């Protein structure tokens, strides 16, 4: 257990509904003793902790002034409406993100990450947004927002094509060649549809798991670069492993998943440690991000080189590597 266990931290909120607040409090009770730090929902403004911002309920032009009242807090954003994602651009770059609706697993990750930062004093204020490394197509951004939803019927219209999505319990039904449209630069129009709409009925006939679509989109969209909402100098960790059906390139993805599940790491450090190409790592990170498997941590700091490992440790590692290599070879992995 980390040294943050006995520190007390406060949770405040801006714009949360009473239902969200009730759910949050019950989850906090459930996580008592399991999360790093002692977390209380007291609403105090000047104590260390997190400030949860419901982006659905805040005015963009008032956000900065509201956040200024909580100088010692890390921002954690939550939203259900896709349109609210635009407001997120005004948040500090190291802001955390909470799932909507709230999920205990995601909340635990967020609290632990915040506790780690608060303990080490790594609270960044008004840091610049991560530099965009690729131009995001409007369709990709729309998919990113849709990925936060668990249900709804929406039509995404582009100049040349209409893509109809029916999302229910994380299963998506769609009509249209989605991946072929990824790099369209024209604006997209997102329209809610009703279940009785003929386009919806047609789309339902072409069902496909949502995660499969998002995974494939993530693998293809970046073309070797991280997606715009990710940054190369930020650290990432998996909150869960990708589903088995998605690990088509298993020899690569399973090893990458192991590296990203141990601790918060940068894509570059994983490429070095796993002896993989940066392209493989960025494709994996992009796919995990779109599927919602990824937790974003703080920006990486340049650290002094670690002391040289002992010869005994090196030898033991080498022996293990040799043994695992033999097992892999025997099983054809």
């Amino acid at each position, binding site marked *: 257990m980390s040294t943050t266990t006995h520190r007390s931290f406060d949770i405040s909120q801006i714009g949360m509904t009473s239902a969200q607040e009730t759910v949050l409090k019950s989850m906090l009770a*459930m*996580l008592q003793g*399991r*999360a790093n730090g002692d977390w209380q929902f007291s609403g105090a403004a000047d104590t260390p902790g997190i400030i949860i911002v419901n982006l659905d309920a805040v005015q963009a032009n008032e956000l900065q002034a509201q956040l200024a009242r909580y100088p010692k807090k890390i921002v954690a954003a939550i939203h259900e409406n896709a349109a609210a994602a635009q407001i997120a651009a005004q948040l500090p770059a190291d802001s955390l993100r909470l799932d909507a609706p709230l*999920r*205990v*697993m995601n909340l*635990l*990750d967020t609290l*632990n990450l915040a506790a780690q930062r608060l303990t080490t004093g790594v609270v960044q204020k008004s840091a610049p947004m991560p530099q965009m490394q690729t131009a995001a197509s409007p369709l990709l951004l729309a998919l990113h927002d849709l990925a936060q939803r668990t249900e709804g019927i929406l039509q995404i219209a582009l100049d040349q094509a209409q893509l109809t999505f029916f999302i229910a319990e994380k299963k998506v039904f769609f009509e249209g060649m989605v991946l072929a449209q990824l790099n369209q630069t024209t604006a997209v129009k997102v329209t809610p549809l009703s279940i009785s709409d003929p386009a919806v009925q047609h789309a339902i006939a072409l069902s496909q798991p949502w995660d499969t679509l998002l995974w494939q989109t993530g693998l293809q969209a970046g073309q070797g670069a991280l997606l715009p909402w990710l940054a190369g100098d930020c650290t990432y*960790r*998996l*909150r*869960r*492993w990708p*589903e*088995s059906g998605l*690990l088509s390139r*298993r*020899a690569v993805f*399973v*090893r990458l*998943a*192991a*590296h990203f*599940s*141990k601790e918060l790491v940068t894509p570059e450090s994983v490429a070095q*440690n796993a002896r993989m190409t940066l392209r493989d790592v960025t494709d994996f990170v992009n796919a995990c991000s779109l599927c919602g498997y990824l937790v974003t941590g703080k920006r990486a700091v340049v650290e002094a080189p670690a002391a040289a490992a002992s010869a005994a440790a090196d030898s033991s590692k080498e022996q*293990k*590597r040799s*043994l*695992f290599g*033999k*097992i*892999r*070879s*025997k*099983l*054809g*992995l």
Partner: protein
Amino acid sequence: MGAGKTTAIGAVSEIGVVSTDVKNSDLAQSQKATTTVAMDYGQITLDGGDQLRIYGTPGQERFDFMWKILSRGALGLIILLDNTRPSPLLDLNKFLDGFAPLIAETGAVVGVSNKPGGPSIDAYYEVLAARNMMLPLFEVDVRKKDDVLLLVDALLSVLEIR
């Protein structure tokens, strides 16, 4: 019981599984005709002559003395869960407790049978998260060799970076 230990070991073992299956007298737990008591055993001979031994031990608590015995010197652990049992999430918690020293020392992978009707995969991850654990967890059909190999591959990958 009924998670597929014998089948999973048989998928990767180069010898026929040495099994201690007997007639199932506990039909309240599972409707299968036979069940493992004590353990299953399989093995793989590696280049150079080393042998990788694979042991499967029953999940019922009355066999927990076997858990400790088989944990000694183990490289790692694969937990197989039957998704259709009455409380598979409690089963997971029980195994995480029972094998805690081995998991802390090496690592573990969780395979959940992909039969319909049980908790979602997210629910299993919630159990892990509540314990501040992050283990590879997959929905698998242990009758498929590829699914068993995925569990082994994930375990080796976790072990390699420890």
